[in-house]
């Protein structure tokens, strides 16, 4: 069966390309799989995937239903009946949620760019063992993996720096992840030294080497680390909850807490809910979809690099 499904199209010369998806040939010594084992595996895998996908399915489907369907189902909808985007139109036509979404996007984009720049520079700066101060700086960073300063002193510091009620409070305190720097550094150190040396002979300085040689060769790990940072900023709510007092400034996750967990009504679109056109539940679910969508769309693209990224990250002090 696999043979039929996975047969790749012949190329111009009639040579078959091996497909990325083709199952590797079974070794002679290995017993052919028995039916019960295969079925068991299939069921276990399906169950595991369903346990993850089913809740998401309900959330997405409910957000796309009209008030009538939701009321008939008595709550969340499992089988969709007709699709309407009214909840999203409402949310994104101004008001609290739209503002919060923009805030989240802004913080995520700016924060990720900032974190990536700082981390890549630092990782490259530490990638040549034997350079001056290399060990000391590395130890300074590593030490923070073992002890944190604690919540209260950090809070007092951010307050003292005057960062409260600014978006900087959402970015600066957690801008650098030492773990991510170590992953990047390990990856940079694996880049062929000859290549870098030859660029140096040709007169390239460190900035040019980083920009023209190291970065283009590190796209995979940059994608992984970029995703880690972006997800971190996108998912963060705690910093906003303690450093921001202005409700207007709250990012999406915090608004989601208010709307869904505390069952508040979103500001700015009461009319539609009150006139009965829109189910409050659909609004709640739509907010959740807004929060999960970017992550769910992006992470599968980066997925194939995860293993490599995580492994090069195995700390090599």
């Amino acid at each position, binding site marked *: 069966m696999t043979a039929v499904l996975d047969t790749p199209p012949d190329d111009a010369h009639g040579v078959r390309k091996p497909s990325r998806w083709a199952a590797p040939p079974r070794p002679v010594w290995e*017993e052919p799989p028995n039916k019960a084992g295969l079925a068991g595996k299939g069921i276990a*895998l399906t169950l595991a995937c369903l346990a993850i996908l089913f809740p998401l399915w309900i959330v997405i489907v409910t957000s796309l239903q009209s008030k009538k369907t939701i009321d008939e189902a008595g709550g969340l909808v499992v089988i969709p009946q007709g699709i309407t985007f009214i909840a999203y139109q409402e949310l994104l036509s101004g008001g609290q949620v739209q503002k919060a979404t923009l805030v989240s996007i802004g913080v995520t984009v700016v924060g990720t760019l900032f974190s990536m720049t700082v981390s890549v520079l630092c990782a490259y700066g530490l990638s040549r063992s034997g350079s001056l101060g290399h060990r000391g700086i590395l130890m300074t960073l590593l030490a923070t993996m073992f002890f944190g300063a604690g919540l209260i002193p950090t809070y007092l510091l951010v307050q003292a720096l005057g960062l409260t009620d600014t978006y900087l409070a959402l970015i600066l305190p957690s801008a650098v992840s030492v773990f991510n720097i170590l992953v990047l550094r390990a990856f940079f150190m694996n880049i062929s030294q000859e290549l870098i040396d030859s660029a140096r002979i040709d007169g390239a300085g460190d900035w040019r080497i980083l920009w023209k040689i190291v970065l283009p060769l590190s796209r995979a790990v940059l994608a992984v680390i970029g995703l880690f940072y972006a997800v971190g900023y996108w998912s963060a709510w705690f910093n906003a909850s303690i450093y921001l007092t202005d409700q207007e400034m709250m990012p999406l996750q915090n608004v989601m807490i208010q709307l869904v967990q505390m069952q508040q009504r979103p500001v700015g679109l009461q009319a539609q809910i009150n006139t009965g056109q829109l189910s409050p539940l659909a609004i709640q679910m739509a907010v959740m979809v807004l929060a999960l969508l970017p992550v769910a769309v992006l992470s599968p693209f980066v997925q194939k690099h995860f293993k490599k990224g995580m492994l090069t990250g195995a700390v090599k002090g």
Partner: protein
Amino acid sequence: MSNSTVPRTTTEAKTPARTPAASGGAAGRRARGGKKNPGKLSLKLRFRRDRTLILMTLPAVLLILVFNYIPILGNVVAFQDYDPYAGDNGFVAIFNSPWIGIEQFERIFADSAFWHAVQNTLVLFFLQLVLYFPIPILLALLINSVVRPRVRAVAQAVMYLPHFFSWVLVVTVFMQIFGGAGIIAQTLRQHGYEGFDVMTDPEVFKYLVTAQTVWKDAGWGIIVFLAALSSVSGDLYEAAAMDGAGRWRRMWHITLPALRPVIALLLVLRVGDALTVGFEQLLLQRQAVGVNASEVLDTYVWWNGIRNQDFSYAAAAGLIKGVVGLALVLIANKVAHLMGEQGVYKK
């Protein structure tokens, strides 16, 4: 310049050439021979050679110093009766607040709420160890036994997904499924049974929290095990099969031993991190389920410090957690080394 074939030396030779003063005789010669003995380079030369690299690390180092190291000094408020209004800002106030020694710590140790938080922390830790820890291993074995790349890729993509969701989202999803107004309770009520509300039941709460952790991170946890499995040589399996070992015997004698170092390492690290259990996750459900069931050390510090503004008291509690936590991590690492694993850092 470019006729030099030893690249490392090129940089070193180039620098003194630019500044004739520094390239005086011996230093220049030493610089050229510096490739084999970098230690022999003078500090000044090494700085000149590496200044770009040092410059590049500066922003990150600065951020780490400001947001990770300076607050460590801020822990002194644990030994004070800190008054945030004693100065122009919270930082100056530290210098103006009176010192009271270990009074805060005495208060904490006399507080039954603190010991309750410790108890909750440890209970959650053990539950996670028993109910959560083995699951990624089993999942990894399952995925590893799947031969077809397409099935593997899809299953992995699905399983990694929840790791990237925020805790807010995960808790909310659980609420919508298992909560009092959630889909299961709704369906039960529709069919004439009594509804239930797992989310606010203090008895079930610890299992619920563990289930959330499993849902979110079990899939992500398989990565490291899959990597360990993929590095096992196929020859071992073939040899075992030639000797007549069946599928299960091969798993028992080859696959599991291959996982042993990773399992041991992660176990040790987890124990070292025992005092940190799901801060955000618990904070989000604190109101719904009540303080008694959900209070752990982290939320205890948050509540007393940020909510009640009793900064000194909370800082003292945080300091206790930090010190004990650091000790646990160091001990765990020591144990990892004793077992012959690499640990988080090298010996």
